[in-house]
């Protein structure tokens, strides 16, 4: 018991000390690389890169909940769907400008996530995973239901057309939207970083590491847990709205339970409890299924499974964990 607490203290301290300063060199490199993508590659690759960025945002949302607050969710496809449908319905039914729907998708999801977080407070671990699973399974059916059909377009889904790129900007559609998504991602990453390294972030992690100790230190665990749920849903909702705009179409079949699982895989592969690991998680869930299909169409899931097992085996703490390990080895060598 004592040993256990010691480890937790060390972990918390490491987060407190290491996380506080932004490594500007690395960030500048990352931003520079990110900005060159749309000018180096063709439209399809830029589209894929945009999807990676969108998945990275959604995975970061899930990571805030699972990695930093210790609550499991298999229901993030539901929030992604709500964000996507918010954008599509606002554009279709109320003629909102596309750009405005992105933050609105996030806000609607924040409310939905916060409200869902309240009853979910009573559930922990596996039970919470099951409750969120129920949410993921229910949402596509609700979207199809005849009562909402006038709004959601039912099984047929909704088209959503992007306005053309403003004339004074010499970019094509793919490049323009990639840069928008990339910018939003940077903004959200920065937001997450500030959140994690604030008083609230420390409270979130304290709840994850030892809820009883956290409560006895005066942290309002219920409030923080619900709020984290809301913020997590906010991130995923923004990703959903962006996704709807990039794909230019939403349908209930776009947001099945499988999406939740993919986000979860992205979270684990990227590394729980890290912020930038989400980018790698996004790459993994977009590119590896394609790669698996190239190897064998009939056995693509089997190939995907094998790759996943190998990755988990080689990088038990995710990609971010592997990089941290290598960096610390390098430092020791010096």
């Amino acid at each position: 018991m004592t040993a256990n607490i010691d480890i937790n203290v060390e972990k918390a301290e490491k987060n407190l000390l290491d996380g506080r300063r932004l490594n500007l060199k690395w960030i500048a490199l990352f931003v520079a690389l990110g900005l060159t993508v749309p000018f180096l590659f063709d439209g399809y690759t830029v589209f894929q890169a945009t999807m990676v960025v969108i998945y990275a945002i959604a995975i970061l949302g899930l990571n805030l909940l699972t990695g930093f607050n210790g609550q499991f969710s298999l229901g993030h496809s539901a929030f992604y769907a709500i964000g996507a449908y918010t954008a599509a319905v606002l554009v279709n039914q109320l003629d909102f400008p596309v750009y405005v729907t992105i933050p609105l998708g996030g806000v609607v999801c924040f409310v939905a996530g916060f409200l869902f977080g309240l009853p979910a407070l009573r559930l922990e671990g596996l039970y919470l995973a099951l409750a969120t699973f129920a949410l993921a399974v229910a949402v596509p059916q609700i979207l199809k239901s005849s009562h909402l059909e006038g709004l959601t377009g039912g099984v047929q889904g909704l088209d959503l057309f992007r306005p053309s790129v403003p004339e004074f900007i010499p970019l094509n559609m793919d490049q323009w939207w990639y840069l928008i998504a990339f910018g939003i991602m940077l903004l959200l990453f920065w937001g997450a970083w500030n959140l994690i390294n604030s008083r609230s972030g420390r409270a979130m992690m304290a709840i994850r590491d030892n809820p009883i100790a956290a409560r006895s230190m005066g942290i309002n665990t219920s409030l923080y847990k619900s709020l984290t749920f809301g913020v997590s849903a906010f991130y995923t909702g923004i990703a959903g709205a962006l996704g709807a705009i990039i794909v230019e179409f939403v349908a209930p079949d776009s947001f099945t339970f499988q999406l939740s699982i993919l986000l979860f895989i992205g979270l684990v592969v990227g590394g729980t409890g890290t912020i930038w690991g989400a980018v790698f998680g996004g790459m993994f869930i977009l590119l590896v299924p394609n790669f698996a299909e190239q190897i064998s169409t009939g056995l693509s899931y089997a190939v995907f499974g094998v790759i996943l097992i190998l990755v988990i085996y080689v990088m038990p703490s995710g990609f971010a964990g592997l990089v941290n390990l290598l960096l610390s080895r390098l430092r020791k060598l010096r």
Partner: protein
Amino acid sequence: MVTGKKLALTLVAAAGLTLTAQLASAEKMYGPGVTDTSIKIGNTMPYSGPAAAYGTIGKASAAYFAKVNAEGGVNGRKIEFISLDDGYSPPKTKEQTRKLVEQEGVLLMYEGLGTPTNSAVHAYLNHKKVPQLFVATGATKWGQPEKFPWTMGWQPSYQTEGKLFARYVKENVKDAKIGILYQNDDYGKDYIHGMREELGDLADKLIIAEESYEVTDPTINSQIIKLKDSGANVFFNVATPKFAAQAIKKVRELEWNPIFLNNSVSNSVGAVYKPAGLENSKDIISLQYYMDPTAPETQQTEAYKKWAAWMKEYNPDGDLLNTFNVFGYLNAQTLVKVLEQCGDELTRENVMKQAANLDFEIDMFLPGVKVQTSPTDFYPIEGMMPVQFNGERPVPIGKVVTLSK
């Protein structure tokens, strides 16, 4: 003298050669994905995920192209069929379609499966002016040449089937009084819309009762009772399998004996007629457009033997009882026909022009069913054969009902 003659001949021959070469190069016009020896065709299919059963269609079509290639290809060009998995997820369909169009550089997209998945790329392909041919879905929206000139469906749409049932009633039933049960959504309404349109002015006179149900309703008993009480002598059942089976049971239980028309969504023996009781399901009429490979009558035909031989050689893992293998086989032949008609002018524009200029029969179709299109008619199959369930299987009765003139 001799030398002069020789020279002249050589000159003439040379001139002739240059001329033919010039003619040939003038005739040959290639869009993306076409060379002298190959044509690239793109496709998306759910090989994984909830709708993976439909993947059979993609495999069957690929097997048909393999046969065409083995026999020398289309006008000497081999079909390179690139079929990617979209898992029935619309965002994935968009990604894979963009990959096929922008990276693989396919000439056209063909036989994409599913309504939501095709919807996700409908606008994109029309914007890019890439043909989206013979999509495997029953929705009505794939045949709008004015709005979406690059998209064409294949199988009869729900609306077309509704029209054909109307034709059938007009041609075969005297003093028809129609009662309709339908599912209250796009699918149900498409059928009603088709039937009303075809009946025209007669619609309000002939259709004396319409009852709808919601997918969430536990039973449809009260609707059936109302329909019976209306005095209808034709019952048109536009319900999905579970409700269709309930309807059959209830109709027989009430000892109501109308002419029973059943939509093709629910004409499966295993999923509907068996649960409803084979005896109860006797005499129910539905519409089909291609042969049922499980029927003994079919298995006697030349068409079936040809199909079975192809299955054995090119699709040996395929199930001879699976109708999807017929669907993929027939649909692929439609594309091959379009490519043949294109000749050496394999541009995207010409592909659409030829796709809108089809008139032919395929051997596994029921006799009289045709593929017919025109620049204003983007619904290739608009004829179906009425079949009656005899307690074991549906048997063709009478002649094909068709919308073509």
